[in-house]
């Protein structure tokens, strides 16, 4: 009896070991390059270190105290991130939703629109940034030219050198490149709405707008929540686009958090402080996402 038991569990263990080899590479990669960085970032944020000296100086929560007692570059960049996220949700996302609704409601060239709207998204953010930098250029840029041509010459300006409009310009470029993605997600969501509900509403005499507001939007709530979270996260972590267009300037008017973290780490060599910023920023993003999920759940 005992011998039989031993054989069976030996075979099973060998079986498990063989199976484990399938997921071993994943575990190695994931532990080293995903899990470890998360933990190390938090760990590093409690030290002061220039990345070169052999000793790291333990400072506890001092980095965080410095952040909260006023690091203008950080707080401005965080504010900019919030502004970008806000504009993206209010302008870009509602526009994508409207487009999805219009297309789904019977557009002849639906296939064309699906393909074309997503094209800006396949370009790298750096490429998008340079294209729009050229469009906004005060001398050769096509935007100022078009404004003059249609008689709005008074609106022309040096967009990217303007402390207010530079951030809007960045926002416009990022919305141009991002709207196709939310459009496709909303379109997918709309296609999942059962036909009977719409049909019976139409039979009951509801018009397009009523159908949209009273039926479609509530059913789409989960999709809207997911898209909102993705839009917000994407906008707040913007980096290459800003590097290409303005590099944070003029002054700090287009500075973004990832840029601040990068500069603190690799320019100012404050590895501990940069990690603290990073931890804080990660926390902000996490809280934002959770708030949105909670808000969605409340609405049901």
């Amino acid at each position, binding site marked *: 009896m005992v011998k039989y038991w031993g054989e069976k569990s030996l075979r099973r263990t060998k*079986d498990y070991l063989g*199976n*484990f080899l*399938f*997921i071993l*590479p*994943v575990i190695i*990669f*994931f532990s*080293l*390059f*995903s*899990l470890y*960085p*998360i933990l190390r*970032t938090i760990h590093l944020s409690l030290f002061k270190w220039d*990345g070169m000296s052999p000793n790291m100086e333990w400072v506890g929560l001092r980095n965080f105290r410095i952040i909260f007692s006023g690091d203008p570059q950080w707080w401005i960049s965080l504010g900019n991130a919030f502004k970008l996220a806000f504009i993206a949700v209010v302008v870009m996302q509602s526009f994508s939703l409207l487009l999805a609704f219009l297309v789904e*409601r019977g*557009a002849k060239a639906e296939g064309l*629109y699906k*393909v*074309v*709207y*997503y*094209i*800006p998204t*396949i*370009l*790298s953010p*750096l*490429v998008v940034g*340079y*294209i*729009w930098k*050229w469009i906004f250029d005060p001398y*050769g840029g*096509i935007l100022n*030219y078009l404004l003059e041509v249609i008689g709005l010459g008074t609106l022309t300006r040096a967009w990217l050198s303007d402390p207010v409009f530079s951030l809007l310009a960045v926002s416009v470029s990022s919305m*141009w490149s991002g709207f196709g*993605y939310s459009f*496709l*997600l909303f379109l*997918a969501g*709309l296609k999942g709405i059962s036909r009977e509900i*719409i*049909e019976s509403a*139409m*039979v009951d005499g509801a018009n*397009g707008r009523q159908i949209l507001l009273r039926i479609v939007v509530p059913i789409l709530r989960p999709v809207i929540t997911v898209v909102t979270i993705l839009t917000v996260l994407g906008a707040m972590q913007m980096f*290459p686009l800003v590097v290409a267009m303005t590099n944070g300037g003029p002054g700090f008017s287009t500075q973004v958090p*990832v840029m601040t*973290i990068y500069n603190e*780490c*690799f320019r100012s060599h404050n590895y501990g402080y940069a*990690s603290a*910023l*990073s*931890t804080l920023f*990660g926390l902000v*993003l996490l809280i934002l996402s959770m708030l949105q999920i909670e808000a969605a759940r409340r609405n049901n």
Partner: protein
Amino acid sequence: MISIKEQSKVKLEMQMKDSGSRKPYTTGNFNIIKELFLLGVSLICLFPILWMISTSLKGTQEAFTSYSLFPKEWRFDNYITAWKQADFGVYFFNSGFYTALTMLGVWLISTLGAYGFARLRIPGKKIIFYILIGSLMIPIPGSFIPLYLLMNKYQLTGTRIGYILPLISGGLATSIFILKSFFEGVPKEFEEAAIIDGCSKFRIFSRIMIPLSKPSWMTVLIFTAMSTWNEYLWALIMFSRKELMPIQVGLQVFQGQYFTKYEMLMAGTTIAAVPMIIIYIIFQKRIISGIMAGGIKG
């Protein structure tokens, strides 16, 4: 006597049958204003790209003075200068290299892992999987800091392999998620038949599961290729020597050299963009349905 409601419903059904394609709530006639509006949005999508290409074919003077979409003389030498003098050939090769290797790495590791999670008996695999997926949820925007330190420690900064490894890791979570769902949907009869025929686990995996899941991993690979080609931040951190830089960082270096010459910059961005456009033209159906099916991060 049929009620009015019934009559309207029948009428509606007949109208919908007439309109041909399965549209949920069209009344049969399409709105020309709406169509023009949607077409207008299409133009807004395409125009900046056309403008980029147009500028790239102009000479410096013309780029700043002419606002026509068509250059007077087509200056293809902008591209030759970019490729040869400004090292775009090198950057292009590097990007291709990194993209290919990252795709390979993601393919190998995620197919193995997804099959393991989906079908093989492994103690604790549920917990491990949840931790894996959980990592997707926790956004740590500055994780490049410890990654850099890690690479530094093993003298892998500024090396090709040091660059590629975290990129492979980054592509694993979505890939495994998608492939695991696929494998879970495969009927067990496939494996049972193979076991009866005497196949080892690995044989089942390589001869049956991989070919079967081709649509899924093809989609994953396409997205991996696109995100690797467009990657910027990690390359910026890793590489200081031009010889190893991928195209995005190279583009930024290029911009520093030619910053007043927009026609050159646009030639550079076109070179950087063309492979993505080609991939998109070839695989657009797959890409779009991939996004609409599961919201893969574009």
